[in-house]
């Protein structure tokens, strides 16, 4: 498997560690979230047949966390973004 790193170009999946659903970026604020909201964040994942946004970590590379959009049907990698940029675009900051 190849992941086309936005800064480094195509890299072998052997350099990466996968975490799973990119919804893990959307962590609720623990001071204001209900237990149910925090529970859903921690435990619930979609399992789509089709495009899936996943978190991959370039552990044996530049230590970037990436959001990889991958089709679970064809295994095609459709899009790769720096997770930090995705997080910022989703309004995460400090």
């Amino acid at each position: 498997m190849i992941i086309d790193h936005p800064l480094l170009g195509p890299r072998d999946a052997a350099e990466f560690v996968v975490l799973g659903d990119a919804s893990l970026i959307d962590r609720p604020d623990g001071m204001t979230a209900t237990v149910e909201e925090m529970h859903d964040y921690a435990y619930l994942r979609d399992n789509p047949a089709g495009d899936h946004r996943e978190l991959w970590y370039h552990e044996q590379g530049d230590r970037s966390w990436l959001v990889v959009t991958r089709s679970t049907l064809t295994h095609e990698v459709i899009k790769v973004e720096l997770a930090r940029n995705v997080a910022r675009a989703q309004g995460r900051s400090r």
Partner: protein
Amino acid sequence: MDEITLEAAPVLGGANLEISGNRIVERDDLAIVSIATPLDGQDALAEALRNGWSLDVPDPTRSTLSGEVRAIRTSPDQMLLIFPHATPDAEATVQDRLAGTGYTTDQTDSWIVLEVAGPDTLSAMERVCPLDVPSFEIGGTGRTVMEHMGAMAIRTGDDSFLLLSASSSAVSFLHAVETSYRNVT
């Protein structure tokens, strides 16, 4: 009691191997200092690098070289400076010139640096390095995994590289590199 002083010892005892006209040398004369870019501090750090060493901030896949000081990017907001320096105060010398424009950590002892050179180098690299190093330009860099060990490759010439890997697994790393040469010569 006699006065005791500590002596620095190269991890591989100063390994220097010749394999059919190729050479693997442990470079224990190089200091390595990481520089992290403070949030929103790119410009100040770039200026400090230029003023301090006449160095540009390297692209993610390229190193920059000024005299004997080399800069390579290790992450979007972190780079390594590699330069000849003997004493364990490399970080302070870097911080002197950065004047707080970057966060520094001494990495000299964290890494083993092997300089590999010789006519079979590209063939040997094929056996250990998943990156497309034959198409690296001189100065090209990549961080990857070699024989289960994290490693960096910097192309320093047509047939030469600097290879960096964790110092604790230096014996295994040397074995991996040496085996690669032996298997192609």
